[in-house]
């Protein structure tokens, strides 16, 4: 089968390099960075840290070069979903497209351009060290399920999950992927912006009782918004937060939003806390803390202009 990773940043690279190790999978990567693409084509895509991998794959900045693919795995930042899928949709005319992005609303964006969509959530994390080289900070599971409005056939979801699992990225096919997604959204919305606003790593955020209480306040609002939609979280985000704070897990991890703020890049705040606030307004669930955090991070972005 042929899989194209759309957006080969840190998370996209974890999928791309690992899947490239399978004999029965032909991997392509579409990315906007010419340097990264050139390095991948010249030297392969290297992962180091939680796993050492050198993946051989074809990368391009030109979507018209892409052959027809069985699967797309979209891993861009949420604000780039629209442009990325608009450019690549033709390659997936007969295939299925999964999103493993952060935040809320990505599936709806994909649905404007492609027909068989997989709602996905992934927990591994890393960062780009240099073009062609990604540091794999944290291993983790992935959940995939059909997107309700424009579902991919469940057999196809299973086929993609099986390939990822065989490649070393443990992935489960589930009938309702909203639970894992909201668990991660609630987790990210409660922790990423706190790291971004304070400059602290995940572990240091969690060991300050006043800050940890704020995290819980954000989690509680997110849980209430999920519950109002009848979504059952597959596990408690609080446990996930405390687990990640352990020294051997992600104590020293700088949230991607903190990395964004340090590099003065636009953040995904609109799709995390902004998404929770949006659903909250629709459902009549108050989310004052998420709204406050959303406004503060938007303020950080505005301070760069």
């Amino acid at each position, binding site marked *: 089968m042929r899989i194209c990773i759309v957006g080969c940043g840190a998370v996209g690279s974890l999928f791309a390099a690992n899947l490239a190790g399978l004999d029965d999978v032909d991997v392509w990567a579409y990315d906007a960075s010419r340097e990264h693409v050139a390095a991948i084509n010249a030297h392969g895509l290297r992962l180091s840290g939680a796993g050492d991998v050198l993946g051989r794959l074809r990368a391009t900045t030109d979507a018209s070069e892409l052959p027809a693919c069985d699967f797309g795995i979209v891993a861009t930042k949420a604000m780039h979903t629209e442009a990325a899928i608009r450019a690549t949709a033709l390659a997936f005319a007969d295939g299925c497209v999964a999103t493993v992005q952060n935040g809320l609303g990505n599936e709806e964006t994909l649905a404007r351009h492609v027909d068989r969509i997989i709602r996905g959530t992934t927990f591994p994390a890393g960062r780009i060290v240099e073009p062609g080289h990604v540091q794999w900070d944290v291993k983790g599971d992935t959940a995939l399920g059909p997107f309700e409005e424009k579902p991919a056939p469940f057999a196809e979801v299973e086929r993609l999950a099986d390939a990822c699992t065989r490649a070393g990225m443990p992935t489960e096919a589930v009938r309702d992927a909203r639970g894992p997604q909201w668990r991660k959204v609630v987790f990210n919305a409660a922790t990423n912006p706190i790291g971004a606003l*304070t400059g602290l790593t995940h572990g*240091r955020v969690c060991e300050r009782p006043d800050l940890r209480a*704020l995290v819980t306040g954000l989690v509680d609002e997110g849980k209430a918004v999920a519950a109002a939609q009848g979504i059952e979280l597959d596990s408690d985000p609080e446990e996930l937060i405390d687990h990640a704070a352990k020294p051997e897990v992600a104590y020293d991890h700088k949230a991607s939003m903190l990395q964004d703020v340090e590099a003065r890049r636009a953040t995904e705040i609109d799709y995390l806390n902004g998404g929770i606030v949006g659903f909250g307004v629709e459902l009549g669930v108050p989310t004052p803390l998420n709204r*406050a*955090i959303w*406004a503060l991070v938007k303020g950080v972005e505005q301070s760069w202009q």
Partner: protein
Amino acid sequence: MDASTSICVAGAGTIGSLLAGHLARVADVSVLTRREEHARALEEHGLRVSGRSDFVAHVRASTDPGALEADLVLVACKGNDLEPLARRIAGHFAGATVMTVQNGLGAEEVVAAYGDWPLLSAVTFMSGTRHDDAHVEYILDTATWIGPHRGTTVQDAGRVASLIVSSGLKAEAFDDLRPAQWSKLVFNATVNGVAALTGLPHDFHFAEGELGALVHALVDEGRAAAAAAGIELHDDPWEMNVLATRRGFAHRPSMLEDVEARRPTEVELIGGSLVREASKRSVPVPLQTALYALVKAKEASYS
């Protein structure tokens, strides 16, 4: 309080330097510094004030409170330096009146614990930039508000206010400073905290859109805390905020400058005071609590 008044400014940061420089034009002024080279620079070069004023003032300066005499002591240091400074002036300046000029709440009590001087309390809205030990730039010519605290009357506050006004700064006396102090507390807890976390100067973002809505909600919590404390605010902090953003000049609150320079901020005395006052009276202030925790954490990130 007249031309024969002798004044000691204790703590010559931006505000202390602005007060010392201007007052030296109408009174005998000395400056109590923490560092020897600061005192030497002032004695050798005088204190230069630029910006809205432009002159060099002659002041005496020393690191030894015993070497300085005064009828009026202005304690103008940053909140974090208050306790050590109060300890240094303990046992000195007998007979003098002491006036605190700190942000937040509680400065008077800190100083009161170190001596039985009559006390005045003040808050100031003026601002400037300290370029070096002997040069301060006067930027915002907003007022200093003064009220009686311990063993003083509104007349005493009025005399100090007149002296400050005659020196070229703005000042006003109040029967009871607390309504003004609380207005500034709510204003500073909100605006300084939001500026420190976002990196934004105090500009139009604070009065519109999502950030304006957050500022409004933070001010509402502050109003509720003030009401529970029996304080009728002198100025509405939201209006103070809106007016300040329309000055055509985006002020950089000191808390923003502090975090950019990775210095400790005054958040304990400002946001911390507000949260503690609210919690004493069981007034929920979840957004101010969040802001306070975030600024504290930002300070922790320096190390």
